[in-house]
């Protein structure tokens, strides 16, 4: 247990000693939110909401994802810089290493997203409501799940370039197709094949449920139009919890396997 806490503390300390990481993980999503929010304002049709509001929970998800990704890239750096070797020959079970990364990286992602949420609350983009505590919990769980997913990918890699490829091919699409950026319409009988495929990819994407859950808790009064698909809050919580447990199990399994980088 101590090892997990120590490794998590180390993630935390390293992160805040590298100012560019703090800025990158928080600045880019905020910039996206302002630019897309303003730019897409006219063209967005999302039932009762305007794009700035619709996109805000998506921005929270993006902050969680970016920060989680940067935190897990540190596994590759740890291996390259040799720190991991020292951990691997210490008398601690390997799952402690995964747990330390997930808790540390998840906590950083969570706090960054809370900072953004606070900002949105202060400028009035988000109303103060009773669902905020629940939102914080959902954000924490999502952060842990995304960090665990990052660990699964990062563990077997020996270069950060490889991780960027995964980020662009898997993680960014995961976010883009989560209803964070554009809503998921119901299928009508005349829908083209492409629409059907995208619709189902989005519905099967676990992140869609985290984003939808956050949206319902950020704006408890928000009514999306009947033409848009939206899961119930119970379903959002359930899927997100299953997602977190599965990615954590995968991460623990991943770190049990020896990887080529260990032989450095």
């Amino acid at each position, binding site marked *: 247990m*101590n*090892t997990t806490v*120590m*490794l998590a503390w*180390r993630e935390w*300390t*390293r992160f805040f*000693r*590298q100012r560019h990481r703090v800025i990158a993980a928080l600045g880019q999503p905020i910039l996206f939110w302002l630019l897309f929010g303003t730019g897409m304002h006219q063209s967005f049709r999302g039932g009762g909401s305007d794009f700035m509001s619709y996109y805000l929970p998506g921005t929270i998800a993006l902050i969680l994802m970016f920060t989680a990704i940067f935190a897990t890239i540190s596994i590759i750096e*740890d291996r390259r*810089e*040799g*720190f991991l*070797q*020292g*951990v*691997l*020959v*210490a*008398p*601690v079970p390997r799952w402690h290493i995964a747990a330390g990364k997930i808790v540390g990286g998840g906590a950083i992602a969570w706090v960054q997203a809370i900072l953004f949420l606070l900002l949105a609350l202060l400028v009035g983009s988000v109303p103060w409501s009773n669902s905020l505590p629940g939102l914080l919990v959902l954000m924490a769980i999502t952060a842990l799940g995304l960090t665990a997913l990052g660990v699964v990918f990062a563990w077997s890699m020996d270069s950060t370039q490889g991780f960027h490829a995964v980020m662009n091919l898997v993680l960014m699409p995961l976010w883009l197709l989560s209803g964070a950026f554009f809503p998921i319409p119901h299928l009508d009988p005349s829908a083209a094949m492409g629409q059907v495929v995208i619709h189902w990819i989005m519905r099967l994407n676990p992140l869609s449920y985290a984003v939808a859950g956050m949206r319902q808790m950020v704006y408890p009064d928000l009514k999306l139009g009947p033409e848009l698909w939206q899961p119930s809050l119970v379903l959002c919580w359930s899927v997100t919890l299953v997602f977190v447990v599965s990615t954590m199990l995968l991460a623990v399994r991943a770190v049990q396997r*020896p990887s080529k980088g*260990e*032989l*450095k």
Partner: protein
Amino acid sequence: MQSQTHVNNSLAATPLIVKGVVHRYGEKAALQGVDLVVQPGEIFALLGPNGCGKSTLFRLISTLVSIQQGTIEVFGADCTSDRAQVREHIGVVFQAPSLDGKLTVLENLWCQGVMYGLSGKALRKRSDEVLEQLGMSDRSKQLCQELSGGMKRRVELAKGLLHRPRLLLMDEPSTGLDPAARLDLWRALTQLRDADGVTVLMTTHLLEEADKADRIAIMDQGRVVACGSPTDLRKEQGSEVITISTDAVDDVAQKIESQLALSVNRLSSEVRIVSEGSVSRLSEVVQLALPYASQVTVGRASLEDVFVAKTGRAWE
């Protein structure tokens, strides 16, 4: 029965026993049956050129890589079945740096200590103690990325020693150190051996470094070709060596063998005569070799001579 127990106890006290270890990377055999015993309280060096298998053996002993064939025991604990116990006995200093540059010296030690079950006051006290011992107390609050190569190495050593390991493993400890820092490192190692009874196993490709060890094993192509104290190994080669530097190695070697009946070692641009009593025939050798040689020298046998004699190949 009693004698059996006695034997087991004495074996348990042996820091390292390597038996019949074979290791392959795909088709290539990196270790081809290595046997080795390291005694308590000695500084033992695995000497060999790059690619001889010493780093593979190091990884196996440090439990970083699983053993494919053979057994390795550290203080009686098996490296395959009792990995956790082995890890408690050993302190590992890798060739590649293992410090976190974004953390301070003290923070790096704390990370290490927690992984080895230390915490709170005990950890703080022990960290201060080790830094004091290695003369790094005044640097404890500094970020590791700001330290010089020699200082980083000392922090690595401090990390390895923090949990009071009985066997310290070091992979090429002198890499990247200037001569003064090397001397410091050796002073620290001999102090550890003498004062704390720590056994040290290191790999090295530097002959002069191996010369300082209590005992060495010379490795070549995945095998141990010689094992003993540097002095004994040199003695086996005869006390003196005549070295002839020449471009015509084969001609000179053949002449000496056929005309003077002395045995020689052929290197790329040297012929070495290591036969006992060859120095008494120095004038004959010089007369024969001088037309072809740029230089003829007489010296004591070195570990390089031992390597050449055991492998028939030049030290690279």
